[in-house]
């Protein structure tokens, strides 16, 4: 039979038994008893990454990264090509879901204390993966070259320009010139489709290797010396793989449902001469964007960059031995406070510079998200200026 023939072909050339043993060891690797549904979030991030790569490659076939063609080519993908709209929507929603799933994955790791010794490096690489994914989102957002993308990128790079001493240099480097234009689209394109995918790929390989090599953390306190290897537990296959399979299909369903029922509008083509009202970054940047508003430029940037920094070096700051969340009250309080801060700032950012109706009264939110009662149907007031001036 052909199967036997292939097997013997390889057996004559390679040490198949040894390889099979390694694979078997990985497949049947025992996982600790505390492995839960929340432990599938990591593989779901990986699935979303793979999905982004495939849909991204498909989009690349028709996309053209120039000021003239970018918008039209995306429009072409959405209207003319077979199912192109679906691939674009799955790519766009995949990006958003990836950030949510990554965040939940980090949250799970935080709550179960898995980042503690000996897994500090796994956490640091994971945090780097999260921030690189945000950069992925930022660079990809510009590529359709529509009004929202153009101005969000203008504002975003303007913020980088406020960094002391080297800000202007960074801004010019990001934009490839004085203003967001053709050079910016080329740069963002290169970063988005070549540099980031490969950097992410190798970081994922390192992250996964460490996860497999050291095993999943238990809920036991950090052991003083080397952590003992787990001999018995829930086998990876089929027990955990089954969970992953179930969550995978749910996620796939959510992804496609959102892509079809809540599609992203392409909007209007970018017009460098006309700033639309109330420019805001994507939702995942809103908390940081809102935070910056409450402080003088320099202080704001310093404070907002503290958050990510603390997150990256968390395992070296928190040297407590306990992993069980019920035995880490301070960590849990800080975590909840951080979450509330993020959600609160995000919501303030979302309502800032909008008008909303509550109980028949119209409120106008200024850039700080503070509501002011105004009469219904009143015209726009002085305080409703966009937060950033358009570039000259």
């Amino acid at each position: 039979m052909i199967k036997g023939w292939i097997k013997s072909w390889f057996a004559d050339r390679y040490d198949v038994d040894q390889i099979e043993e390694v694979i078997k060891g990985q497949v049947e690797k025992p996982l600790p008893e505390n492995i839960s549904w929340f432990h599938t979030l990591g593989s779901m991030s990986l699935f979303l990454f793979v999905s982004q790569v495939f849909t991204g490659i498909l989009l690349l076939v028709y996309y053209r990264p120039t000021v003239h063609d970018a918008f039209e080519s995306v429009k072409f993908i959405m209207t003319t090509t077979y199912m192109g709209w679906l691939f674009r929507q799955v790519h766009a929603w995949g990006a958003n879901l990836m950030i949510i799933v990554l965040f939940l994955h980090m949250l799970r790791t935080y709550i179960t204390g898995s980042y503690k010794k000996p897994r500090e490096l796994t956490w640091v690489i994971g945090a780097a993966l999260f921030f690189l994914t945000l950069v992925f989102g930022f660079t990809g957002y510009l590529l359709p070259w529509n009004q929202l993308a153009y101005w969000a990128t203008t504002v975003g790079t303007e913020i980088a320009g406020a960094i002391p001493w080297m800000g202007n240099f960074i801004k010019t480097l990001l934009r490839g010139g004085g203003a967001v234009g053709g050079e910016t689209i080329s740069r963002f394109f290169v970063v988005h489709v070549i540099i980031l995918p490969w950097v992410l790929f190798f970081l994922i390989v390192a992250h996964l290797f460490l996860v497999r090599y050291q095993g999943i953390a238990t809920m036991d306190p950090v052991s003083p010396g080397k952590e003992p290897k787990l001999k018995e537990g829930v086998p990876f296959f089929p027990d955990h793989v089954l969970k992953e399979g179930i969550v995978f299909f749910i996620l796939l369903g959510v992804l496609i449902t959102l892509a079809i029922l809540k599609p992203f509008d392409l909007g209007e083509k970018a017009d460098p001469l006309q700033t639309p009202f109330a420019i805001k970054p994507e939702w995942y940047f809103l908390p940081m964007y809102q935070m910056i508003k409450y402080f003088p430029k320099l202080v704001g940037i310093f404070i907002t960059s503290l958050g990510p920094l603390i997150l990256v070096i968390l395992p070296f700051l928190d040297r407590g031995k306990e992993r069980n969340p019920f035995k880490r009250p301070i960590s849990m309080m800080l975590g909840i406070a951080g979450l509330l801060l993020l959600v609160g700032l995000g919501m303030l950012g979302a309502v800032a510079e909008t008008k909303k109706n509550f109980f028949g009264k119209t409120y106008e939110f200024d850039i700080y998200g503070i509501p002011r009662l105004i009469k219904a149907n009143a015209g726009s007031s002085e305080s409703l200026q966009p937060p950033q001036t358009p570039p000259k």
Partner: protein
Amino acid sequence: MKNTEDQNLEGPAVLKKEMSRRDFLDWVIKGGILATLSGMLFPALAYLWPVMGHGPKVDMEEVAALDEIPVGGFKKVFLGGSALLLIRTAQEIKAFSAICTHLGCVVDWDGPKREIVCPCHAGVFDLEGRVVSGPPPRPLPTYPVKVINGKVFIKL
């Protein structure tokens, strides 16, 4: 497995085909995964198939003004992603694909000799696009031309 083999030795051959519950579920799962993957593959392949390959455009497109081309002269234009050669004779304007049917070089109009020549491998075509000499295997495709109000229109 061993059990069924034992039975085969004595029992009828039909038993050999009996499927266990385990095999059935195995097929269902593998079949399900395969169906999912092929369901994803088909739209991707259909998406990759050239959109423009569905036939020529219906409309005529303006490619030049009549004044631009003297009698006996020519103009090369680029339309719908391919190069075209316009030649003005005493009576009319003719439009050919400027892509040599041999190896795809762009052909030129040799006015004095009244021939279309390919610079790469010395292929020669006449004013009807037919091969006169050289290696080209097929005549040059021609396109309908209309001249309206001094403007040249071509239908691809």
